[in-house]
């Protein structure tokens, strides 16, 4: 049981780390640090860096949370039938 709980927690933490890397890279690097460079690419009337900072990242955040919730629900089942 103890090992089971530990494995569950490890799987959770590694999932969080993976998703937080995406959470960091897209808005902070794409939307801020390298925004100027990306602005040379146009997305319709949007410069790409500007779009990531004012639109794209927000959509990404929603996807990240639902993906996490779905993966965790699977982990919950895998490690002992949820609640």
């Amino acid at each position, binding site marked *: 049981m103890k090992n089971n*709980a530990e494995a569950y927690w490890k799987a959770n933490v590694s999932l969080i780390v993976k998703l*937080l890397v995406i959470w960091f890279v897209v808005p902070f690097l794409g939307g801020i640090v390298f925004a100027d460079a990306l*602005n040379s690419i146009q997305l319709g*009337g949007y410069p790409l860096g500007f779009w990531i900072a*004012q639109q794209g990242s*927000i959509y990404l*955040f929603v996807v990240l949370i639902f993906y996490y919730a779905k993966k*965790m629900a699977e982990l*919950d089942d895998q490690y002992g039938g949820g609640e």
Partner: protein
Amino acid sequence: MSLQMLTYIVVGFTFALYIGIAIWARAGSTKEFYVAGGGIHPVSNGMATAADWMSAASFISMAGLIGFSYQGYGGSVFLLGWTGGYVLLAMCLAPYLRKFGKFTVPEFVGDRYYSNAARIVAVICLIIASVTYVIGQMKGIGVAFSRFLETSYETGLTAGMVIVFIYAVLGDMKGITYTQIAQYVVLIFAYTIPAIFISLNLTGNPFPQLGLGSTLADGTYVLDKLNQTVTELGFAEYTTSTRGSTLNMFVYTLSLMIGTAGLPHVIIRFFTVPSVKDARRSAGWALVFIAILYTTAPAVAAMARLNLMDTIEPTPGNYLAYDERPQWFKNWEKTGLLKYEDKNGDGLIQYSADKATNEMVKVDNDILVLANPEIAKLPNWVIALVAAGGLAAALSTAAGLLLAISSAISHDLLKGVIRPDISEKGELQASRIAMAFTVLLAGYLGFNPPDFAEGTVALAFGLAASSIFPVLMLGIFYKRMNTQGAIAGMLAGIGVTLFYVFQHKGIMFIKSTAFLGDMSPNWFLGIEPNAFGAVGALVNFAVAIAVAKMTAEPPKEIQDLVDDIRSPHGAGSAVAH
């Protein structure tokens, strides 16, 4: 029917609806009072969280901040910061705190760090962060009322206080949850309908999110046209002007994200869902509902700015005569939030980036969203709806904050520390009294100079980021964290944040006590005080971990408690101890 009459009817109807719901759903027990009995559906909770979160700042001020003060791209810090925090909340805090299953944030801190001292420090952080936040809501209510009742800001604020007061006496988590759902519906319609109209007018695309990337009637892209117009007037280019340095924008965004995840009135919303799974999903739904407004806001900001400049200067060099100014211009002049000064005496309105010749001497950020439908010449019922939406946003957030404050006082201080033997009824009464006093305090502070109210928002996010978020996250993810580490970390985090903010803005925001001395503003790597919360959080993490390593590890039962909150098994509904 006159606009004012229509506004009274729409606003009056929505208020009657909120109060009706609050009475219908009144709580009977402490569990219903604090966490709505723990039986709220995750989608409903998501909607209530969205209303709880989206305040007067999001609804009334944000588009204006993006479009004017932060000159376009710089405003991304709010869009990113105030949404990205939900990812942290969903993965790092909400599920485990839900599993813990108590009523308040300081209660978790007190139990996890087996210390009343830690609990009291958490209560103090919570109260300062939440009270400063309430002041912003009061200001928003004052602005909305003053325009739509055509009174001064002070009268508007007083009217707002009376309504929040009635609301507070009725308020509890169960009632507030259902009212917030109604308020979300009102505010999201009020925000998106004018945006859809304006996007259609300008670009022919009904989705503002797409309209902002589309072309105007003359075939140029909205953003290209805007860039051209603002640079001609001497302003920075809309799509690229950063707020301070790139590093400042980076840290500012991170501070708002961490601060968002650490705000207690948002965290406690996740105590109301039935299970840990629901807490995770509910955070996703909350962000969906928030994103509808947050992806619309940049379009509102850009299009409103374009419309405003088009009104003042229809074609280059051809200025609007002051005598021919439209009705909305006159209406907003009455509130003092819009000011014109004929510097060159030609009777025309010249708007430019040059302070010496600019005649639009004041365009308050807060009027952009409220005046937007009038500027775009939308029908009166849309204008009335926007007024109701602004008030819904301010009221729903004020209610959530007041509940967080009063439960910290009645549940953590009174029941938890001072008088553990208090009856359930006594605790509820104490909570309602605490709420009433908080309304008075916030109203009083709302009357103080406006720069006070503005400065406090930085403090609210700074404190939440530098104290509450790290202590909660370490409590869950770092089993070795003990009392000494937690308290030292919180004090260090708050300490550096307060120091930096007060150094710039004066002790308790009294301007004359600012102690920058020979130092230049934003001396720390060019980071402005509003953006300092992330630095405070880093200091908190570092100090807490260092101190915890040097002191004894927490007792066995606490380590077991951490194991328990990490596992979703057996999460009952929230209980009092």
